[in-house]
């Protein structure tokens, strides 16, 4: 037996969530060639099928691109510090791709390592993730090569499957998921067929071992020198989590803020002295690969990549994790 729900029923649910003041984030068609996770304002705005995957990720729901840590205000000779209030809005991510949801446990490790990031954990607590299993994939998808797949449940509270006829199968993974759909689904005999997902690439889970020997290779430049040094890969990545803290404002008021940062920026490792330990773009690209497939796994025992392929999709010159790994393996690293 399975649980099913109709599309109109889901949209009614969304309407109700919005009415309750919850924030609903779901894939939205921005233009014919662009689907993006966005806060939805009306229940008919978002997609439940007909897209491969949005070009951004759901990490923004728990790790916003910009957040204030505290504000300062100068009153006469006195300076007031006003800590940012903890988030309190409940969030529901709907129709997230499994490769997005799978990144949340990865982020959990980062934001709870050594110190616990209060705002992150609060948002995480307030967030329910309803993933939507993939029926299709494109040339950039490689989740299966990293142990994931079109119906991967990591990070999801519930998983939806498209059964056709405007009907979705609901598989709840956690209590949060159960609570969200309690009383909203019907029993059915229909179950979603298993979808194979993208063809498995060469053994990328073992790439960490290959990297043991690859650091000093001179080929990094040849593999990566078309990189232009933007942050499109990192910002579209569900797992990248680097940030920069700056003070913004003037002599009377302002804030300390935390913004996304990207390791491909030339300034990322620039020291105040003017020295830059990663002065060449190939060093930055190598860093990105090593962080995802070597450093992070050594520390936390899992890859910092879910194989979503967004880095390549977003890259102005079709670079990204997979093309680099493929180039490396082609050279027999």
């Amino acid at each position, binding site marked *: 037996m399975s649980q099913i729900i109709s599309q109109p029923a889901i949209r009614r649910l969304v309407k109700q969530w919005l009415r309750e003041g919850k924030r609903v984030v779901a894939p939205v068609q*921005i*233009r014919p*060639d*662009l689907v*993006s996770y*966005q806060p939805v304002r009306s229940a008919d705005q978002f997609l439940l099928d007909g897209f491969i995957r949005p*070009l*951004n990720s759901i990490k923004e729901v728990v790790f916003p*691109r*910009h957040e204030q840590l505290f504000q300062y205000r100068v009153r006469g000779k006195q300076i007031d510090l006003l800590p940012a209030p903890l988030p309190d809005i409940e969030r529901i991510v709907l129709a997230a791709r499994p490769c997005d949801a799978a990144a949340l446990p990865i982020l959990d490790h980062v934001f709870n390592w050594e110190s616990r990031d209060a705002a992150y954990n609060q948002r995480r607590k307030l967030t329910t993730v309803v993933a939507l299993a993939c029926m299709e994939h494109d*040339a*950039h998808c490689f989740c299966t090569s990293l142990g994931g797949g079109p119906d991967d449940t990591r990070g999801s509270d519930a998983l939806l499957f498209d059964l056709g006829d405007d009907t979705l199968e609901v598989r709840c993974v956690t209590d949060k998921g159960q609570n969200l759909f309690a009383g909203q689904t019907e029993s059915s005999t229909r179950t979603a067929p298993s979808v194979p997902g993208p063809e498995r690439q060469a053994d990328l889970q073992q790439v960490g071992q290959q990297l043991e020997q690859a650091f000093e290779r001179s080929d990094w*430049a040849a593999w990566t*020198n*078309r990189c*232009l*040094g*933007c*942050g*499109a890969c*990192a*910002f*579209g990545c569900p797992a990248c989590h680097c940030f*920069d803290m*700056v003070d*913004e404002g003037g002599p009377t008021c302002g804030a300390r*803020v935390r*913004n*996304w940062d*990207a390791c491909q*920026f030339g*300034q990322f490792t620039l020291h105040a002295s003017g020295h830059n330990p990663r002065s*060449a*773009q*190939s060093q930055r690209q190598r860093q990105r690969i090593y962080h995802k497939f070597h450093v992070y796994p050594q520390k936390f025992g899992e890859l910092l990549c879910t194989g979503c392929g967004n880095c*390549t999709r*977003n890259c*102005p*010159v*079709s*670079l990204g994790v*997979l*093309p680099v790994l*493929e180039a490396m393996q082609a050279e027999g690293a």
Partner: protein
Amino acid sequence: MLQPLRETCRRLLDDGTVQVVIGYGQAMRAVEPYPVFITDPNDVGQLVWNEQCRTNLVKYLLRQEIRALGKPAIVVKGCDERALVVLEQESQIERSEIVVIGVACDGMAEARCEVCDAHQPRFADHTIGHATNKEQSAERRYAHLAEFQERPIADRMDYWKAELERCVKCYACRQSCPLCYCQRCIVEKNRPAVLDTSPTLKGNFAWHIVRAFHLAGRCVGCDQCSRVCPEGIDLRLLNQSMARASEASFGHRSGTDPQAELVLGNFSKQDQEQFIR
């Protein structure tokens, strides 16, 4: 087209005229051709040419990784080539130290190609193929902008609020622009921080105003910024409003005349405007 292109590149590499060819290549997985850097004459087979070669490769002339490869030959379309003209006017390249391989282009299936008047390269050292340059009226070239500007001002503001709300400041627009070459971008300057680095609406407005205005009188309309934006923001509108004003007020079309004076940094006592009282 492809054979003569490969042959020309092979010859240039063979006889040592250049050490690297900046061109388009394609791997099986990639949807679009992507930039390749051929240093071995035997690798010219990697070069491709098709109607998906949209990337403006000129940016690579400025990147230190590519400069380190030696004297370059670069494959350009008639539209890309205009960026070379500006870079030379702004002392960023020595034209004599670059071999330019122009490829005649019938269009890359982009909107701008329909109003292109630079199908045939004009300043290249070697030209592959032949295409006809058709004159295009300013009305046609700026039709997209004109249509947008007909909207009421509040609509325009709402449009940009919605668009720039999505900007995450990945700087793909900047990094792929062939005319962005600062050692340190203004957005990275602190003391004072002229604009917020935060990807908030405030910071995004400030950034896109700066980016567009720093291209005032310079932008050659390759639309690379709009093309690479992962959020699909139509930056072309901003660039075009500067370009159209430069053309209307100063008769200047950036990158079309190597002898022309640049718009900013020069002036004419005869400059006409109505708004200064």
